[in-house]
Protein backbone atom coordinates (compact mmCIF):
# COMPACT_ATOMS: atom_id res chain seq x y z
CA UNK A 1 0.00 0.00 0.00
CA UNK A 2 1.23 3.47 -0.68
CA UNK A 3 0.06 6.95 -0.12
CA UNK A 4 -1.51 6.92 -3.55
CA UNK A 5 -4.09 4.40 -2.41
CA UNK A 6 -5.62 6.93 -0.11
CA UNK A 7 -7.68 9.99 -0.80
CA UNK A 8 -7.09 12.97 1.46
CA UNK A 9 -10.15 14.98 2.51
CA UNK A 10 -9.64 18.43 4.01
CA UNK A 11 -12.06 21.10 5.15
CA UNK A 12 -10.92 24.39 6.64
CA UNK A 13 -12.40 26.55 9.37
CA UNK A 14 -10.87 29.99 9.28
CA UNK A 15 -11.25 32.54 12.05
CA UNK A 16 -10.86 36.00 10.57
CA UNK A 17 -10.74 38.85 13.09
CA UNK A 18 -12.89 41.64 11.72
CA UNK A 19 -11.14 45.00 11.61
CA UNK A 20 -13.70 46.98 13.60
CA UNK A 21 -12.59 49.71 15.97
CA UNK A 22 -14.55 48.27 18.89
CA UNK A 23 -15.42 44.78 20.03
CA UNK A 24 -18.39 42.81 18.82
CA UNK A 25 -20.44 43.19 22.02
CA UNK A 26 -18.72 46.02 23.90
CA UNK A 27 -17.28 49.46 23.27
CA UNK A 28 -13.72 48.40 24.16
CA UNK A 29 -10.94 48.92 21.62
CA UNK A 30 -9.73 46.01 19.51
CA UNK A 31 -6.25 47.47 18.95
CA UNK A 32 -3.52 44.88 19.22
CA UNK A 33 -0.67 44.98 21.67
CA UNK A 34 -1.83 47.01 24.67
CA UNK A 35 -0.84 46.05 28.21
CA UNK A 36 -2.69 43.03 29.63
CA UNK A 37 -6.37 43.60 30.41
CA UNK A 38 -6.30 47.32 29.70
CA UNK A 39 -8.75 46.81 26.83
CA UNK A 40 -10.94 44.40 28.73
CA UNK A 41 -14.17 46.22 29.61
CA UNK A 42 -16.83 45.15 32.12
CA UNK A 43 -18.58 43.22 29.34
CA UNK A 44 -15.34 41.60 28.17
CA UNK A 45 -14.43 40.34 31.64
CA UNK A 46 -18.07 39.30 32.19
CA UNK A 47 -18.77 41.18 35.39
CA UNK A 48 -22.06 40.08 36.96
CA UNK A 49 -25.00 41.94 35.40
CA UNK A 50 -23.38 43.19 32.20
CA UNK A 51 -25.00 42.62 28.81
CA UNK A 52 -23.91 42.37 25.16
CA UNK A 53 -24.94 44.85 22.45
CA UNK A 54 -24.07 43.98 18.85
CA UNK A 55 -21.64 46.07 16.78
CA UNK A 56 -23.13 47.16 13.45
CA UNK A 57 -19.66 47.25 11.90
CA UNK A 58 -19.14 43.55 12.53
CA UNK A 59 -22.45 42.69 10.89
CA UNK A 60 -21.69 44.90 7.91
CA UNK A 61 -18.37 43.09 7.37
CA UNK A 62 -20.13 39.74 7.45
CA UNK A 63 -22.51 41.00 4.76
CA UNK A 64 -19.57 42.15 2.64
CA UNK A 65 -18.06 38.72 2.89
CA UNK A 66 -21.31 36.99 2.02
CA UNK A 67 -21.69 39.13 -1.09
CA UNK A 68 -18.04 38.63 -2.08
CA UNK A 69 -18.42 34.85 -2.21
CA UNK A 70 -21.90 35.00 -3.74
CA UNK A 71 -23.50 33.42 -0.69
CA UNK A 72 -26.89 33.80 1.00
CA UNK A 73 -27.00 36.57 3.60
CA UNK A 74 -29.62 35.44 6.09
CA UNK A 75 -32.53 37.87 6.55
CA UNK A 76 -32.69 36.58 10.11
CA UNK A 77 -29.91 34.90 12.04
CA UNK A 78 -29.58 33.97 15.69
CA UNK A 79 -26.81 34.23 18.27
CA UNK A 80 -26.36 31.19 20.45
CA UNK A 81 -24.31 30.37 23.50
CA UNK A 82 -21.62 27.73 23.21
CA UNK A 83 -21.05 26.61 26.79
CA UNK A 84 -17.69 25.42 28.09
CA UNK A 85 -15.35 26.31 30.89
CA UNK A 86 -11.96 27.77 30.08
CA UNK A 87 -10.12 30.61 31.79
CA UNK A 88 -9.80 32.66 28.61
CA UNK A 89 -13.59 32.46 28.17
CA UNK A 90 -14.88 34.78 30.90
CA UNK A 91 -18.60 34.11 30.66
CA UNK A 92 -18.21 30.35 30.56
CA UNK A 93 -19.81 30.50 27.13
CA UNK A 94 -18.89 31.94 23.78
CA UNK A 95 -21.50 33.96 21.92
CA UNK A 96 -21.55 32.46 18.46
CA UNK A 97 -24.07 31.44 15.83
CA UNK A 98 -25.19 27.86 15.58
CA UNK A 99 -28.40 26.90 13.80
CA UNK A 100 -28.94 30.11 11.86
CA UNK A 101 -25.63 31.67 10.68
CA UNK A 102 -25.47 35.07 9.01
CA UNK A 103 -23.90 33.69 5.79
CA UNK A 104 -24.62 30.35 4.09
CA UNK A 105 -23.08 28.79 0.98
CA UNK A 106 -20.88 30.60 -1.50
CA UNK A 107 -17.78 29.57 -3.43
CA UNK A 108 -14.16 30.52 -3.90
CA UNK A 109 -12.18 29.55 -6.99
CA UNK A 110 -8.57 28.67 -6.39
CA UNK A 111 -5.62 28.07 -8.68
CA UNK A 112 -3.38 25.25 -7.54
CA UNK A 113 0.15 24.40 -8.65
CA UNK A 114 2.45 26.05 -11.19
CA UNK A 115 3.15 25.93 -14.88
CA UNK A 116 1.63 23.19 -16.98
CA UNK A 117 0.39 21.30 -13.95
CA UNK A 118 -1.61 24.26 -12.65
CA UNK A 119 -5.37 23.78 -12.41
CA UNK A 120 -8.38 25.68 -11.15
CA UNK A 121 -10.85 24.37 -8.62
CA UNK A 122 -13.97 25.75 -7.02
CA UNK A 123 -14.23 25.26 -3.27
CA UNK A 124 -17.71 25.38 -1.74
CA UNK A 125 -18.26 27.16 1.53
CA UNK A 126 -20.67 25.81 4.10
CA UNK A 127 -21.24 28.96 6.11
CA UNK A 128 -19.71 31.95 7.79
CA UNK A 129 -20.89 33.11 11.18
CA UNK A 130 -20.18 35.91 13.62
CA UNK A 131 -18.76 35.16 17.04
CA UNK A 132 -16.51 36.61 19.71
CA UNK A 133 -12.84 35.81 20.17
CA UNK A 134 -11.53 34.47 23.49
CA UNK A 135 -8.76 35.97 25.61
CA UNK A 136 -5.29 34.51 25.91
CA UNK A 137 -3.68 32.23 28.44
CA UNK A 138 -0.04 33.13 28.97
CA UNK A 139 1.90 30.10 30.00
CA UNK A 140 5.00 31.79 31.35
CA UNK A 141 5.46 30.73 34.88
CA UNK A 142 3.74 32.86 37.50
CA UNK A 143 4.63 30.74 40.56
CA UNK A 144 3.36 27.68 38.75
CA UNK A 145 0.22 29.48 37.52
CA UNK A 146 -0.94 30.78 34.15
CA UNK A 147 -1.82 34.41 33.47
CA UNK A 148 -5.04 35.41 31.71
CA UNK A 149 -5.19 38.44 29.44
CA UNK A 150 -8.69 39.30 28.21
CA UNK A 151 -7.77 42.12 25.81
CA UNK A 152 -8.59 39.90 22.87
CA UNK A 153 -11.83 38.64 24.43
CA UNK A 154 -14.77 39.97 22.45
CA UNK A 155 -12.86 40.82 19.29
CA UNK A 156 -15.27 40.11 16.42
CA UNK A 157 -14.57 36.97 14.44
CA UNK A 158 -16.02 35.69 11.23
CA UNK A 159 -15.69 31.93 11.31
CA UNK A 160 -15.58 30.77 7.69
CA UNK A 161 -16.28 27.09 7.21
CA UNK A 162 -15.55 25.29 3.94
CA UNK A 163 -16.96 22.04 2.70
CA UNK A 164 -14.47 19.14 2.85
CA UNK A 165 -13.56 19.88 -0.78
CA UNK A 166 -9.78 19.99 -0.63
CA UNK A 167 -7.82 16.90 -1.63
CA UNK A 168 -4.25 17.90 -0.77
CA UNK A 169 -2.32 20.26 1.44
CA UNK A 170 -1.54 22.27 -1.69
CA UNK A 171 -5.26 22.79 -2.32
CA UNK A 172 -5.79 23.67 1.32
CA UNK A 173 -3.03 26.26 1.19
CA UNK A 174 -4.29 27.65 -2.12
CA UNK A 175 -7.76 28.01 -0.61
CA UNK A 176 -6.42 29.62 2.56
CA UNK A 177 -4.36 32.05 0.50
CA UNK A 178 -7.32 32.94 -1.72
CA UNK A 179 -9.51 33.50 1.33
CA UNK A 180 -6.79 35.55 2.98
CA UNK A 181 -6.50 37.72 -0.11
CA UNK A 182 -10.26 38.09 -0.30
CA UNK A 183 -10.84 39.24 3.27
CA UNK A 184 -8.11 41.81 2.80
CA UNK A 185 -9.45 42.74 -0.64
CA UNK A 186 -12.86 43.59 0.77
CA UNK A 187 -11.22 45.20 3.79
CA UNK A 188 -12.91 43.25 6.54
CA UNK A 189 -9.75 41.78 8.11
CA UNK A 190 -6.16 42.99 8.23
CA UNK A 191 -4.93 39.45 7.58
CA UNK A 192 -2.02 39.78 9.99
CA UNK A 193 -1.27 36.16 10.72
CA UNK A 194 1.52 36.80 13.24
CA UNK A 195 -0.95 38.74 15.38
CA UNK A 196 -3.56 36.04 14.97
CA UNK A 197 -5.95 38.02 12.78
CA UNK A 198 -6.37 35.07 10.42
CA UNK A 199 -6.19 31.59 11.94
CA UNK A 200 -6.83 28.27 10.28
CA UNK A 201 -8.20 25.03 11.70
CA UNK A 202 -7.94 22.06 9.35
CA UNK A 203 -10.23 19.05 9.48
CA UNK A 204 -8.27 16.19 7.98
CA UNK A 205 -9.26 12.64 7.16
CA UNK A 206 -8.23 9.98 4.66
CA UNK A 207 -10.28 7.35 2.88
CA UNK A 208 -10.12 4.81 0.12
CA UNK A 209 -11.07 6.57 -3.12
CA UNK A 210 -14.81 6.36 -3.49
CA UNK A 211 -15.19 4.95 0.01
CA UNK A 212 -17.04 6.50 2.95
CA UNK A 213 -15.50 9.51 4.69
CA UNK A 214 -12.86 8.64 7.26
CA UNK A 215 -12.87 9.87 10.85
CA UNK A 216 -11.44 13.36 10.97
CA UNK A 217 -9.07 15.03 13.33
CA UNK A 218 -9.09 18.79 13.68
CA UNK A 219 -5.76 20.62 13.72
CA UNK A 220 -6.25 23.86 15.66
CA UNK A 221 -4.81 27.34 15.33
CA UNK A 222 -2.45 27.22 12.38
CA UNK A 223 -1.19 30.76 11.98
CA UNK A 224 0.93 30.53 8.84
CA UNK A 225 0.47 28.95 5.42
CA UNK A 226 3.70 27.02 5.91
CA UNK A 227 2.47 25.50 9.17
CA UNK A 228 -0.84 24.70 7.51
CA UNK A 229 0.96 22.75 4.83
CA UNK A 230 3.35 21.02 7.24
CA UNK A 231 0.64 20.13 9.72
CA UNK A 232 -1.64 18.65 7.09
CA UNK A 233 1.21 16.68 5.50
CA UNK A 234 2.23 15.27 8.86
CA UNK A 235 -1.33 14.49 9.85
CA UNK A 236 -2.11 12.74 6.56
CA UNK A 237 1.02 10.62 6.81
CA UNK A 238 0.23 9.80 10.45
CA UNK A 239 -3.35 8.76 9.66
CA UNK A 240 -2.33 6.63 6.67
CA UNK A 241 0.38 4.87 8.62
CA UNK A 242 -1.94 4.20 11.47
CA UNK A 243 -4.67 2.80 9.24
CA UNK A 244 -2.21 0.70 7.31
CA UNK A 245 -0.92 -0.70 10.58
CA UNK A 246 -4.46 -1.86 11.25
CA UNK A 247 -5.30 0.94 13.67
CA UNK A 248 -8.30 3.25 13.75
CA UNK A 249 -8.61 7.03 13.93
CA UNK A 250 -10.40 8.58 16.92
CA UNK A 251 -12.06 11.93 16.38
CA UNK A 252 -9.82 14.43 18.15
CA UNK A 253 -8.65 18.00 18.34
CA UNK A 254 -4.91 18.24 17.83
CA UNK A 255 -2.27 20.93 18.01
CA UNK A 256 0.65 21.35 15.61
CA UNK A 257 4.09 21.85 17.11
CA UNK A 258 6.21 23.79 14.60
CA UNK A 259 9.39 22.80 16.43
CA UNK A 260 8.89 19.07 15.97
CA UNK A 261 6.67 19.29 12.89
CA UNK A 262 4.23 16.91 14.60
CA UNK A 263 0.62 17.04 15.75
CA UNK A 264 -0.54 15.95 19.21
CA UNK A 265 -3.93 15.55 20.85
CA UNK A 266 -5.12 18.56 22.88
CA UNK A 267 -5.92 17.96 26.52
CA UNK A 268 -8.45 20.66 27.23
CA UNK A 269 -11.33 19.71 25.00
CA UNK A 270 -12.94 16.99 27.09
CA UNK A 271 -16.41 18.55 26.92
CA UNK A 272 -16.19 19.20 23.20
CA UNK A 273 -19.01 16.80 22.57
CA UNK A 274 -21.48 18.78 24.65
CA UNK A 275 -21.46 22.54 24.20
CA UNK A 276 -25.15 22.84 25.18
CA UNK A 277 -25.89 25.42 22.49
CA UNK A 278 -29.05 27.45 22.97
CA UNK A 279 -30.24 30.84 21.66
CA UNK A 280 -28.66 33.65 23.71
CA UNK A 281 -31.54 35.23 25.64
CA UNK A 282 -29.56 38.47 25.99
CA UNK A 283 -29.63 39.06 22.24
CA UNK A 284 -32.54 39.33 19.85
CA UNK A 285 -32.49 37.81 16.35
CA UNK A 286 -30.23 39.67 13.92
CA UNK A 287 -32.40 41.02 11.11
CA UNK A 288 -30.73 42.15 7.88
CA UNK A 289 -33.11 43.92 5.51
CA UNK A 290 -32.60 43.76 1.71
CA UNK A 291 -31.97 47.52 1.55
CA UNK A 292 -28.96 47.10 3.83
CA UNK A 293 -27.57 44.33 1.64
CA UNK A 294 -28.06 46.53 -1.44
CA UNK A 295 -26.19 49.40 0.20
CA UNK A 296 -23.29 47.14 1.08
CA UNK A 297 -23.25 45.70 -2.43
CA UNK A 298 -22.97 49.19 -3.93
CA UNK A 299 -19.94 49.91 -1.76
CA UNK A 300 -18.11 46.70 -2.63
CA UNK A 301 -14.98 47.11 -4.72
CA UNK A 302 -14.61 45.08 -7.92
CA UNK A 303 -13.89 41.55 -6.71
CA UNK A 304 -10.81 39.56 -7.70
CA UNK A 305 -12.70 37.00 -9.77
CA UNK A 306 -14.41 39.70 -11.83
CA UNK A 307 -11.21 41.65 -12.21
CA UNK A 308 -9.33 38.55 -13.30
CA UNK A 309 -11.93 37.77 -15.96
CA UNK A 310 -11.72 41.35 -17.21
CA UNK A 311 -7.93 41.21 -17.43
CA UNK A 312 -8.20 38.08 -19.54
CA UNK A 313 -11.07 39.23 -21.75
CA UNK A 314 -10.29 42.92 -22.19
CA UNK A 315 -6.53 43.05 -21.71
CA UNK A 316 -5.67 39.72 -23.33
CA UNK A 317 -3.68 38.53 -20.35
CA UNK A 318 -3.03 34.85 -19.75
CA UNK A 319 -4.90 33.12 -16.94
CA UNK A 320 -1.64 32.85 -15.05
CA UNK A 321 -0.88 36.57 -15.36
CA UNK A 322 -4.42 37.55 -14.47
CA UNK A 323 -4.34 35.30 -11.39
CA UNK A 324 -0.99 36.68 -10.29
CA UNK A 325 -2.08 40.29 -10.73
CA UNK A 326 -5.28 39.75 -8.75
CA UNK A 327 -3.68 37.77 -5.93
CA UNK A 328 -3.84 40.87 -3.79
CA UNK A 329 -5.89 44.02 -3.90
CA UNK A 330 -2.76 46.17 -3.68
CA UNK A 331 -1.05 44.63 -6.70
CA UNK A 332 -4.28 44.69 -8.68
CA UNK A 333 -4.86 48.33 -7.79
CA UNK A 334 -1.31 49.21 -8.81
CA UNK A 335 -1.59 47.36 -12.07
CA UNK A 336 -4.97 48.88 -12.88
CA UNK A 337 -3.65 52.38 -12.26
CA UNK A 338 -0.68 51.75 -14.53
CA UNK A 339 -2.91 50.47 -17.34
CA UNK A 340 -5.31 53.38 -16.88
CA UNK A 341 -2.41 55.81 -17.33
CA UNK A 342 -0.64 53.96 -20.16
CA UNK A 343 -3.71 52.94 -22.11
CA UNK A 344 -5.26 49.57 -22.63
CA UNK A 345 -2.97 48.82 -25.59
CA UNK A 346 -0.10 48.66 -23.12
CA UNK A 347 -1.90 46.30 -20.71
CA UNK A 348 0.29 43.33 -21.55
CA UNK A 349 3.50 45.37 -21.29
CA UNK A 350 2.37 46.84 -17.97
CA UNK A 351 1.69 43.30 -16.73
CA UNK A 352 5.20 42.24 -17.70
CA UNK A 353 6.71 45.15 -15.85
CA UNK A 354 4.59 44.70 -12.73
CA UNK A 355 5.22 40.97 -12.50
CA UNK A 356 8.82 41.23 -13.69
CA UNK A 357 11.13 44.09 -12.82
CA UNK A 358 8.84 45.74 -10.29
CA UNK A 359 8.06 42.52 -8.43
CA UNK A 360 11.74 41.58 -8.38
CA UNK A 361 12.84 44.95 -7.03
CA UNK A 362 10.08 45.03 -4.41
CA UNK A 363 10.91 41.53 -3.37
CA UNK A 364 14.61 42.28 -3.02
CA UNK A 365 13.91 45.44 -1.04
CA UNK A 366 11.23 43.63 1.03
CA UNK A 367 8.73 46.32 0.19
CA UNK A 368 4.99 46.10 -0.25
CA UNK A 369 3.68 47.36 -3.56
CA UNK A 370 1.91 50.19 -1.76
CA UNK A 371 5.37 51.42 -0.71
CA UNK A 372 6.86 51.14 -4.19
CA UNK A 373 9.24 54.04 -5.01
CA UNK A 374 8.01 53.81 -8.60
CA UNK A 375 4.40 54.92 -8.85
CA UNK A 376 1.91 53.41 -11.32
CA UNK A 377 1.91 56.71 -13.24
CA UNK A 378 5.70 56.70 -13.46
CA UNK A 379 5.69 53.12 -14.68
CA UNK A 380 3.03 53.99 -17.24
CA UNK A 381 5.18 56.91 -18.46
CA UNK A 382 8.07 54.53 -18.94
CA UNK A 383 5.99 51.98 -20.79
CA UNK A 384 4.63 54.70 -23.07
CA UNK A 385 8.13 55.84 -24.05
CA UNK A 386 9.13 52.31 -24.93
CA UNK A 387 6.00 51.86 -26.97
CA UNK A 388 6.52 55.03 -28.96
CA UNK A 389 10.18 54.14 -29.61
CA UNK A 390 11.52 57.06 -27.62
CA UNK A 391 13.67 54.52 -25.81
CA UNK A 392 14.43 50.86 -26.28
CA UNK A 393 13.43 48.16 -23.91
CA UNK A 394 17.01 47.93 -22.66
CA UNK A 395 17.16 51.65 -21.93
CA UNK A 396 13.76 51.24 -20.31
CA UNK A 397 15.37 49.11 -17.63
CA UNK A 398 17.89 51.87 -17.00
CA UNK A 399 15.11 54.41 -16.74
CA UNK A 400 13.24 52.12 -14.33
CA UNK A 401 16.33 51.92 -12.11
CA UNK A 402 16.64 55.67 -12.22
CA UNK A 403 12.98 56.09 -11.24
CA UNK A 404 13.44 53.56 -8.43
CA UNK A 405 16.43 55.52 -7.14
CA UNK A 406 14.53 58.76 -7.29
CA UNK A 407 16.77 60.32 -9.97
CA UNK A 408 13.83 62.02 -11.60
CA UNK A 409 10.11 62.59 -11.31
CA UNK A 410 9.14 60.89 -14.55
CA UNK A 411 10.55 58.72 -17.29
CA UNK A 412 10.59 61.78 -19.57
CA UNK A 413 12.64 63.79 -17.07
CA UNK A 414 15.18 61.01 -16.79
CA UNK A 415 15.38 60.40 -20.55
CA UNK A 416 15.91 64.12 -21.10
CA UNK A 417 18.39 64.67 -18.27
CA UNK A 418 20.45 61.60 -19.04
CA UNK A 419 20.20 61.92 -22.81
CA UNK A 420 18.74 58.50 -23.23
CA UNK A 421 16.48 59.33 -26.12
CA UNK A 422 16.71 56.72 -28.84
CA UNK A 423 18.72 57.68 -31.94
CA UNK A 424 16.49 57.23 -34.99
CA UNK A 425 18.35 59.52 -37.37
CA UNK A 426 19.41 57.12 -40.19
CA UNK A 427 22.41 59.25 -41.09
CA UNK A 428 23.75 59.12 -37.54
CA UNK A 429 23.15 55.39 -37.32
CA UNK A 430 24.84 54.84 -40.67
CA UNK A 431 27.89 56.78 -39.53
CA UNK A 432 28.11 54.65 -36.39
CA UNK A 433 27.74 51.48 -38.44
CA UNK A 434 30.46 52.52 -40.82
CA UNK A 435 32.83 53.08 -37.92
CA UNK A 436 32.00 49.70 -36.43
CA UNK A 437 32.39 47.87 -39.75
CA UNK A 438 35.76 49.49 -40.27
CA UNK A 439 36.97 48.43 -36.85
CA UNK A 440 35.62 44.86 -37.00
CA UNK A 441 36.74 43.45 -40.31
CA UNK A 442 37.06 39.99 -38.75
CA UNK A 443 33.38 39.85 -37.89
CA UNK A 444 32.44 41.14 -41.31
CA UNK A 445 34.45 38.34 -42.90
CA UNK A 446 32.91 35.73 -40.66
CA UNK A 447 29.40 36.95 -41.49
CA UNK A 448 30.13 36.82 -45.17
CA UNK A 449 31.44 33.28 -44.65
CA UNK A 450 27.96 32.41 -43.43
CA UNK A 451 28.27 32.82 -39.69
CA UNK A 452 24.98 34.45 -38.68
CA UNK A 453 26.28 34.89 -35.13
CA UNK A 454 28.80 37.40 -36.34
CA UNK A 455 25.89 39.65 -37.34
CA UNK A 456 24.65 39.77 -33.77
CA UNK A 457 28.13 40.67 -32.58
CA UNK A 458 28.17 43.59 -34.98
CA UNK A 459 24.75 44.76 -33.81
CA UNK A 460 26.04 44.63 -30.27
CA UNK A 461 29.04 46.75 -31.24
CA UNK A 462 26.78 49.35 -32.85
CA UNK A 463 24.51 49.48 -29.82
CA UNK A 464 27.53 49.82 -27.58
CA UNK A 465 28.85 52.64 -29.74
CA UNK A 466 25.49 54.39 -29.41
CA UNK A 467 25.48 53.71 -25.66
CA UNK A 468 22.32 51.69 -26.23
CA UNK A 469 20.40 54.56 -27.72
CA UNK A 470 20.31 53.53 -31.37
CA UNK A 471 17.01 52.13 -32.50
CA UNK A 472 17.69 48.38 -32.67
CA UNK A 473 15.34 47.80 -35.61
CA UNK A 474 17.00 50.50 -37.66
CA UNK A 475 20.45 49.24 -36.76
CA UNK A 476 19.44 45.78 -37.96
CA UNK A 477 18.05 47.03 -41.19
CA UNK A 478 20.91 49.37 -42.15
CA UNK A 479 23.58 46.90 -41.13
CA UNK A 480 22.07 44.16 -43.23
CA UNK A 481 21.85 46.49 -46.18
CA UNK A 482 25.48 47.58 -45.78
CA UNK A 483 26.69 44.00 -45.54
CA UNK A 484 24.96 43.34 -48.81
CA UNK A 485 22.37 41.09 -47.35
Amino acid sequence: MSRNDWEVVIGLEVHAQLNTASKIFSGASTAFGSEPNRQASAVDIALPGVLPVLNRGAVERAIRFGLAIDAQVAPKSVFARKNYFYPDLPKGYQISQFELPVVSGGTITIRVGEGDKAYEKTVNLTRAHLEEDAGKSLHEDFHGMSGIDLNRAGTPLLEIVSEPDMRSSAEAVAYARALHALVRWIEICDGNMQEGSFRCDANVSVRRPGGPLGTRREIKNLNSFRFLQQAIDFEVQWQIERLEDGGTIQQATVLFDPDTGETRVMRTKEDAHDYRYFPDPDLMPLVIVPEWIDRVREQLPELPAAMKARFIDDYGLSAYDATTLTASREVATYYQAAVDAAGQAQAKTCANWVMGDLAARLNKAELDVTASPVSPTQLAGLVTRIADNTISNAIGKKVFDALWNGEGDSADDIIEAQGLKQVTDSGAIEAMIDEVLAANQKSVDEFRAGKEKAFNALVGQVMKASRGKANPAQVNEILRRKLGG
Partner: protein
Amino acid sequence: MSLSLEDVRKISSLARLDLSESDAEATRSKLNGILELVEQMQAIDTSGVEPMSHPQDVAQRLRDDAVTETDRRDDFQRVAPQTEAGLYLVPKVIE
Protein backbone atom coordinates in the same frame (compact mmCIF):
# COMPACT_ATOMS: atom_id res chain seq x y z
CA MET B 1 -36.90 9.82 32.61
CA SER B 2 -34.94 9.15 35.73
CA LEU B 3 -31.32 10.04 36.40
CA SER B 4 -28.81 7.47 37.59
CA LEU B 5 -26.01 8.35 39.99
CA GLU B 6 -23.68 8.14 37.03
CA ASP B 7 -25.82 10.70 35.15
CA VAL B 8 -25.72 13.02 38.14
CA ARG B 9 -21.94 12.75 38.31
CA LYS B 10 -21.66 13.46 34.60
CA ILE B 11 -23.89 16.54 34.76
CA SER B 12 -22.04 17.79 37.85
CA SER B 13 -18.80 17.45 35.99
CA LEU B 14 -20.15 19.28 32.94
CA ALA B 15 -21.34 22.07 35.26
CA ARG B 16 -18.04 22.10 37.17
CA LEU B 17 -19.72 21.47 40.51
CA ASP B 18 -17.86 19.23 42.91
CA LEU B 19 -20.26 16.59 44.19
CA SER B 20 -19.33 14.60 47.26
CA GLU B 21 -20.24 10.93 47.40
CA SER B 22 -22.44 11.61 50.40
CA ASP B 23 -24.44 14.27 48.52
CA ALA B 24 -24.80 12.37 45.27
CA GLU B 25 -27.80 10.27 46.26
CA ALA B 26 -29.75 13.15 47.82
CA THR B 27 -29.04 15.28 44.77
CA ARG B 28 -30.19 12.50 42.48
CA SER B 29 -33.48 12.09 44.29
CA LYS B 30 -34.23 15.84 44.30
CA LEU B 31 -33.31 16.21 40.63
CA ASN B 32 -35.55 13.29 39.76
CA GLY B 33 -38.40 14.94 41.65
CA ILE B 34 -37.94 18.08 39.56
CA LEU B 35 -37.68 16.13 36.32
CA GLU B 36 -40.88 14.29 37.20
CA LEU B 37 -42.63 17.66 37.51
CA VAL B 38 -41.15 18.74 34.19
CA GLU B 39 -42.22 15.50 32.56
CA GLN B 40 -45.85 16.77 32.46
CA MET B 41 -44.82 18.76 29.41
CA GLN B 42 -44.45 15.64 27.34
CA ALA B 43 -48.21 15.02 27.36
CA ILE B 44 -48.83 18.06 25.16
CA ASP B 45 -48.77 17.88 21.39
CA THR B 46 -46.84 20.92 20.26
CA SER B 47 -46.27 19.98 16.66
CA GLY B 48 -46.43 23.05 14.46
CA VAL B 49 -45.86 25.44 17.37
CA GLU B 50 -42.95 27.81 16.90
CA PRO B 51 -40.59 27.87 19.89
CA MET B 52 -40.61 31.18 21.79
CA SER B 53 -37.21 32.47 22.91
CA HIS B 54 -38.17 36.01 23.86
CA PRO B 55 -41.31 37.64 25.22
CA GLN B 56 -41.02 40.40 22.61
CA ASP B 57 -40.75 39.79 18.90
CA VAL B 58 -38.26 42.51 18.03
CA ALA B 59 -35.00 42.61 16.10
CA GLN B 60 -31.56 42.99 17.62
CA ARG B 61 -30.59 46.63 18.00
CA LEU B 62 -27.15 47.53 16.64
CA ARG B 63 -24.46 49.70 18.16
CA ASP B 64 -22.29 52.00 16.08
CA ASP B 65 -18.73 50.78 15.81
CA ALA B 66 -17.06 53.24 18.19
CA VAL B 67 -14.70 52.85 21.12
CA THR B 68 -16.58 54.07 24.18
CA GLU B 69 -14.83 52.22 27.00
CA THR B 70 -11.79 53.43 28.90
CA ASP B 71 -9.24 51.43 30.84
CA ARG B 72 -10.63 50.40 34.24
CA ARG B 73 -8.31 47.48 34.89
CA ASP B 74 -7.33 48.55 38.38
CA ASP B 75 -10.97 48.90 39.49
CA PHE B 76 -11.88 45.58 38.00
CA GLN B 77 -8.92 43.71 39.43
CA ARG B 78 -9.48 45.02 42.95
CA VAL B 79 -12.10 42.27 43.39
CA ALA B 80 -10.08 39.51 41.70
CA PRO B 81 -8.88 36.53 43.73
CA GLN B 82 -5.34 36.60 42.32
CA THR B 83 -3.62 38.89 39.83
CA GLU B 84 -0.08 39.75 38.86
CA ALA B 85 1.29 42.21 36.31
CA GLY B 86 -2.26 42.97 35.22
CA LEU B 87 -3.05 39.31 34.54
CA TYR B 88 -5.61 37.10 36.24
CA LEU B 89 -3.81 34.09 37.67
CA VAL B 90 -5.23 30.59 37.43
CA PRO B 91 -3.82 27.11 38.01
CA LYS B 92 -1.59 26.18 35.09
CA VAL B 93 -3.48 25.78 31.84
CA ILE B 94 -2.33 22.72 29.92
CA GLU B 95 -3.53 22.59 26.33
